[in-house]
């Protein structure tokens, strides 16, 4: 690089790099360091080096293992449900229907409202409206307060998460569907392909890039869910919905186990990275070029 250019290079990149390094890179490195210590977070108290003990202890922490299991179940259900609802909505709103625009606007709106507030809204609906509908219709096997039930509370989380994310992935699928060239569809029509055949043989394969990105987004945000968890169930009843992210928060700031909690946080990073990278690798391989 010429000398003058080097000056410009620094001027353009340094401000962001300084902020980025301070906020992301250094804390990440310190975080790895802390995970080898036992420490209660009070500066005056000693940090005791325990090597890999924190990581070994994780496998004895029943509550952590349970939260890992719940998070996995939640993620699988949520990814399936968000993508089915999102893709269906996208297919419906891109067909020439009169209500398409209104529907598109409304389905997307929850994503803008934000997880914490959505959680509170639905807390009220499960608490009051569900029981009311149950009373009126007599269907109190379906309409009761899901949040008080050990199993249903998790489904309530899936339900609200789907509500939040479906509109977002719908937009991604719409972009994908609009990228499918019309002449190919027309040609298939002339060749006598049925609607279902056209979807399966043309639209679906060409949607693969949209699948890659939608699955990545839903997978990682389901796995990292915190806001909705906090406001909808608070992890209850009896920790039945305490997800990974909340467990880490509670371990560090709730119980003051800074080193142990940070070890969990490091494992959390590796799990998120491994899952999402595998998914992107697998779906990318199935993408086709036009």
């Amino acid at each position, binding site marked *: 690089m010429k000398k003058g250019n080097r000056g410009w290079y620094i001027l353009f*990149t340094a401000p962001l790099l300084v902020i980025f390094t301070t906020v992301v890179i250094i804390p990440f490195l310190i975080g790895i360091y802390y995970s080898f210590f036992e420490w209660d977070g009070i500066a005056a108290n000693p940090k005791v080096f325990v090597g890999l003990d924190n990581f070994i202890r994780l496998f004895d922490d029943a509550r952590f293992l349970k939260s890992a299991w719940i998070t996995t179940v939640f993620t699988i259900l949520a990814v399936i449900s968000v993508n089915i609802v999102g893709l269906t909505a996208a297919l419906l709103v891109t067909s020439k229907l009169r209500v398409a625009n209104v529907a598109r606007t409304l389905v997307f709106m929850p994503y803008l409202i934000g997880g914490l507030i959505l959680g509170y809204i639905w807390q009220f609906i499960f608490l009051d409206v569900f029981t009311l509908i149950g009373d009126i219709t007599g269907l109190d096997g379906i309409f009761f307060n899901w949040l008080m039930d050990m199993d249903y509370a998790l489904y309530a989380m899936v339900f609200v998460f789907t509500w939040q994310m479906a509109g977002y992935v719908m937009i991604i699928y719409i972009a*994908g569907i609009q990228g499918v060239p019309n002449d190919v569809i027309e040609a298939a029509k002339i060749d006598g392909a049925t609607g279902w055949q056209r979807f399966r043989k043309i639209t679906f394969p060409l949607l693969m890039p949209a699948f890659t990105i939608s699955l990545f987004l839903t997978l990682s945000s389901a796995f990292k869910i915190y806001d909705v968890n906090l406001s909808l169930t608070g992890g209850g009843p009896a920790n039945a919905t305490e997800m990974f992210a909340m467990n880490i928060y509670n371990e560090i700031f709730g119980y003051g186990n800074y080193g142990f909690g940070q070890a969990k946080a490091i494992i959390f990073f590796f799990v998120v990275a491994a899952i999402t990278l595998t998914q992107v690798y697998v779906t990318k391989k199935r993408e086709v070029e036009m």
Partner: protein
Amino acid sequence: MKILSKYAKEVLLFLAALFFLSPIYIIIVNSFKNRQELYDNALALPEKFSFQYYTEAMEKMGFLSALGNSLYITILSVLIIVVLSSMTAWMLARTDNKLSNIIFMTFIATMLIPFQTLMMPLMQLMGTITNELHIPMFNTREGLIFMHVGFSSSISVFLYHGFIKSIPITLEEAATIDGATKFGVFWRIIFPMLKPITVTVMILNVINIWNDYLLPSLTLTDKGLRTIPLSTFYFFGEFTIKWNLAMAGLMLTIIPVVIFYVLAQKHIIKGIGEGAVK
């Protein structure tokens, strides 16, 4: 047969849209009811419309101050992100050497780090900066903005970088020959061309920063500095039993979002779509 299925689709979609709207209906009707009326029938229309609970909720959650804080933090963060990440992405994309590649790859790789992995060491580091360098990172809106910018930089640089790669370099070269400085080339020629991706970067970051709860909850303890998600959280801690008041509070928090959506709807949907397929 075909007409029937089209009709069925219309109805189906209309019902789905109604279903997505129903929580808003529930919040609105109950925000006008007193407690007895709310418990009698949460679905019915209120007997009379009075804004009593709105004024009460507004006062109890410190709504106007929270709105001001949220606006200040979101707008400033997003402006800084747009300026700094577009400049950085341009330099990285146009200077094709090892260093640029390493920096860019670092940005991409860190997108995989969940916030929970960073939150504790970040708070420790911010504490050190506050105590040793006497730069107040806690309980200042500017400290929070600094952190928001840091967390948003990866995705923003990534989006800008991808877009810049698709712009031919010849225009810049011509301007350089005409004697323009790098600064001039970027701000006069390149930045205006980045408008579509700037819209995407702005929208994604506005949504993330506006709705963020965890980071502000860790850095702001002062009541007067609370953002909207933060004041909603504390409001619910104190008034959970008074659901009618809570509904008015929730409605207040949704109103700014709806206004934003109505004003920028076209850009939001297009921006999200473009950000995703990039």
